[in-house]
């Protein structure tokens, strides 16, 4: 199946790349002096030329500091970097994760089910998950006392937390067609600050714990799991076997480790090495999402992502959303030297979207070694942060409007807010939605045009002036549904891949994270008994000493 083993990955054309880069540098020399207000004034068709829609998403790039010629040149660079070959490599299951010798086939998780009788582990695990979801939603998943489960706690961190949390919150309005969904809780932090107050509130007889960990060795998750297990076994001391059987589900790529921990075989959900953690919400890691929106909703989420996969593979680059988004990010970072990006959803339901994107992009592309093992001499991923837009307006927008740093912004909103129920009662809510969208459009306009978005005359004092020219992309979903969210997430995933190809880095490993986990283990001994502190630097040694002193 593997047409691209890691030693046969696509090459790039170094000469063509140098030329394309040079052309972009010269172009950028002019573009640095452009102001968005002038660009709009000079081209009434600018929106038509620089916007695009696919899979229920409209992307407006016309508030970026570029023109159609810029995009041509960027596509030239992508060609030189072998983007088309890399895309084939990704979708043919090549070892695009070359440092770990693995494929990255998250797209495979959202392909339509293979026919019955054909081997299809993805379909089989989804069916297994569906049985569990049905049992929980119908009130027939029983605790060890025979009570119906009312609360589900997802324990996971990173990809096993951020994706399910983001999507479950975003889609909370979409109820399952049948059954009653349990209350969902997410526990990720290793310090116990989330789990302790939660366990105080929950009834052990009606609580189900979902342990989500690809490796099933993540200390953050396993420490929370141990606490939950202790809590349950204390509550039902005479039902030890039934506690594990009735109250724990495991989701992992490592079934042996799940069994070792005590997860009953019937309660194990699998995914695979070829699914990266931060790309895993489409797999059985998405169990909390399926519990929120039902299996039908979950399949819509997959369908939206699958449609975007097809768009990415099939659409010409001129009309290819992930390709263009990726190229524009490269333009801003490497040619306009804009090293920060703000992610600004204008929709409270997307409140976890910034955190999700921070992980997806910075853990994927926060790298500096290329395919040849060389250190790169250009920037890769920008610094990304974000917040729900209307709230951020009262926090860091001041810096965007009048600070000294250029920041590329990303506005995300739903064009309409579909609601069920009594429209008369919800009229004020409709108005709130309109108010929010008005703020979204007004802010991107002011950031782009500066003073020229205003009508006031010329004698305004300097401290009241708006420089403008902050570039932004606006992404409008027709509506926030499982389908649209699936497409949106897949768009970002593929955009990240496009960028990685242009930067020549591997977006699917995270060696920087692995080392941190390891070194923390040694530090436990230092804190417990001072063992090994001699080898530490003066700062760490002193801090550890202070902590030990305070604890005694």
């Amino acid at each position: 199946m593997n047409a691209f083993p890691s030693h046969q990955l696509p090459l790039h054309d170094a000469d063509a790349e140098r030329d394309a880069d040079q052309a972009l540098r010269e172009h950028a020399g002019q573009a640095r002096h452009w102001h968005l207000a002038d660009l709009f004034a000079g081209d009434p068709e600018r929106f038509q030329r620089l916007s695009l829609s696919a899979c229920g998403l409209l992307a407006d790039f016309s508030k970026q500091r570029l023109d159609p010629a810029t995009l041509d040149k960027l596509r030239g660079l992508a060609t030189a970097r072998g983007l088309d070959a890399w895309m084939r490599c990704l979708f043919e299951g090549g070892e695009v994760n070359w440092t770990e010798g693995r494929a990255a086939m998250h797209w495979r998780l959202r392909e339509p089910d293979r026919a019955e009788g054909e081997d299809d582990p993805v379909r089989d695990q989804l069916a297994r998950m569906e049985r569990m979801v049905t049992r929980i939603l119908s009130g027939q998943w029983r605790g060890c006392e025979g009570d119906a489960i009312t609360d589900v706690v997802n324990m996971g961190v990173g990809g096993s937390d951020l994706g399910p949390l983001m999507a479950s919150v975003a889609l909370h309005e979409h109820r399952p067609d049948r059954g009653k969904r349990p209350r969902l809780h997410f526990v990720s932090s290793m310090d116990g600050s989330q789990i302790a107050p939660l366990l105080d509130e929950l009834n052990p007889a009606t609580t189900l714990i979902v342990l989500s960990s690809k490796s099933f060795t993540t200390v953050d998750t396993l420490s929370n799991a141990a606490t939950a297990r202790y809590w349950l076994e204390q509550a039902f001391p005479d039902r030890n076997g039934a506690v594990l059987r009735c109250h724990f589900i495991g989701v992992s790529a490592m079934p042996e480790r799940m069994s070792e921990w005590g997860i009953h075989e019937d309660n194990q959900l699998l995914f695979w090495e070829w699914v990266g953690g931060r790309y895993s919400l489409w797999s059985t890691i998405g169990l909390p999402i399926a519990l929120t929106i039902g299996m039908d909703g979950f399949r819509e989420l997959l369908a939206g992502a699958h449609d975007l996969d097809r768009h990415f593979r099939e659409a010409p680059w001129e009309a290819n959303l992930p390709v263009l988004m990726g190229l524009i990010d490269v333009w801003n970072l490497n040619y306009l030297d804009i090293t920060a990006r703000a992610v600004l959803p204008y929709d409270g339901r997307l409140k976890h979207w910034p955190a999700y994107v921070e992980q997806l992009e910075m853990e994927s592309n926060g790298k500096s070694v290329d395919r040849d093992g060389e250190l790169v001499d250009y920037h890769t991923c920008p610094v990304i942060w974000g917040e729900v837009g209307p709230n951020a307006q009262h926090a860091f927008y001041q810096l965007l409007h009048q600070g000294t740093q250029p920041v590329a912004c990303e506005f995300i909103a739903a064009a309409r807010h579909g609601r069920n129920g009594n429209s008369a009662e919800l009229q004020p809510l409709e108005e709130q939605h309109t108010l929010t969208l008005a703020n979204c459009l007004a802010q991107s306009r002011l950031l782009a045009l500066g003073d020229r978005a205003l009508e006031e005359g010329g004698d305004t004092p300097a401290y009241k002036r708006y420089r403008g020219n902050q570039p932004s992309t606006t992404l409008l979903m027709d509506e926030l549904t499982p389908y649209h969210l699936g497409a949106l997430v897949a768009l970002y995933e593929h955009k990240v891949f496009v960028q990685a190809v242009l930067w020549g880095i591997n977006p699917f490993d995270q060696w920087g994270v692995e080392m941190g986990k390891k070194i923390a283990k040694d530090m436990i001994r230092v804190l417990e008994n001072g063992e090994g502190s001699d080898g530490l630097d003066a700062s760490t040694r002193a801090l550890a000493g202070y902590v030990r002193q305070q604890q005694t």
Partner: protein
Amino acid sequence: MRIDMFGDTLCAMVTAAAFAQSGHRVRWWLPPGRVARALDDGRVLYQEPGLAELVTAQRRAGRLDCRTDEPGLADPNGEPAVSEPAPVVCLALQPGDQDRAGHLADWAGRGGARLLINQSVFPVGSTEELQARLREQGAATPVVCLPDTLQEGMALSSFTRPHHLLLGCDDREAEVLMREILRPYNRRRDVLQVMQPREAEFTKVAISGMLATRLSYMNDMALLAEELGVDIDVIRQGVGSDPRIGEAYLYAGCGFGGPGFSRDVMNLTDTLRRRRVGAELLEQVLQINERQKEVLFRKFWRHYEGEVDRRRVTLWGAAFKPGSDRVDNGPALRLIEALWAQGVDVHVHDPLALPELAAWARDKGTLTLHDDPYDAARDSDAMMLVTEWKAYWGPDWDDLKAAMRTPLILDGRNIYDPAYVTRQGFTYYGIGRS
């Protein structure tokens, strides 16, 4: 007097038969269904003492005319009805049948009926809505409410020798006529309480709510009894002997159900919520009851420590109460669903309710139904006593034990003596007994 009765509820049957017995000539219009079909076959579906005999006798005497045709009222164009209404028209329809009640009221009004009696259990205010509807159409027929307060199990005597009678009526003439009709049942002393129609309807559901509250209260006490290691039945007798409380509706068990009583409580809860009064107490009452319907399942689950896949379970009784063929809202349904979901093979015996149960189970799952209770128990890992039919009170313990794979009794109505059953070699769990 000539009287038209509509509906196939127990209330319709009891009222029609009792009126006929008192000399009235009653036309009883039955909608198609099980009650009508049974009457066609010369049977009486409702198992109430004396009722079948009375219905048969009155039909034979010619005073009770059971009809399954329509009096021609379904015509919206004002065509003359096939039959003109009798002077008195009674509605004892199924809950939720308000639309039909409206059409029947129109017909009665157009035909100049002297009185329309609503006995159907509808939301509070429905009788007054019917009255307003007739008034709007210019009909002079007064509408009164005679709430169905029959006690199931003694329905006929509770109608003919009532302890109290509620009448919702705000029309002097109508009250005179009602008193005349009810005279045979109101002799020893006047037990008729006349109030506004909505007050009568409210009183009726408030009674149901109070009774349900007593049951759920006792079920909560049963949980405590298990914890304390005492028998809830001892507590029940003690509590019930206090005259401020009385003995009725204090039995702990595996939950109430049925088409009437539990429907009343749900309706009242809905009304409270809609009126934004809040229904905290009744919501708890219903929630406890729902929990209670699964109590036998939970005991079974705990006994086998959650390993119940492919086990076999026998239900004795599916009807929501003895004497009925109805299974609506009853604990049997919740139990069966819970057992199915765990892959348990379910076998059921019930003397009357199996056809209803089979109709409910169609398209849902597989049940094996048995005519013989011991056949039903064959190779079973647990016997759940759900309905306290008289025939279940004294089983042949040796035969039962020989039939079952595991001698485990889950007694949802506390009809067995735990010590005795245990001595017969069974493991026994009741409700509120350790």
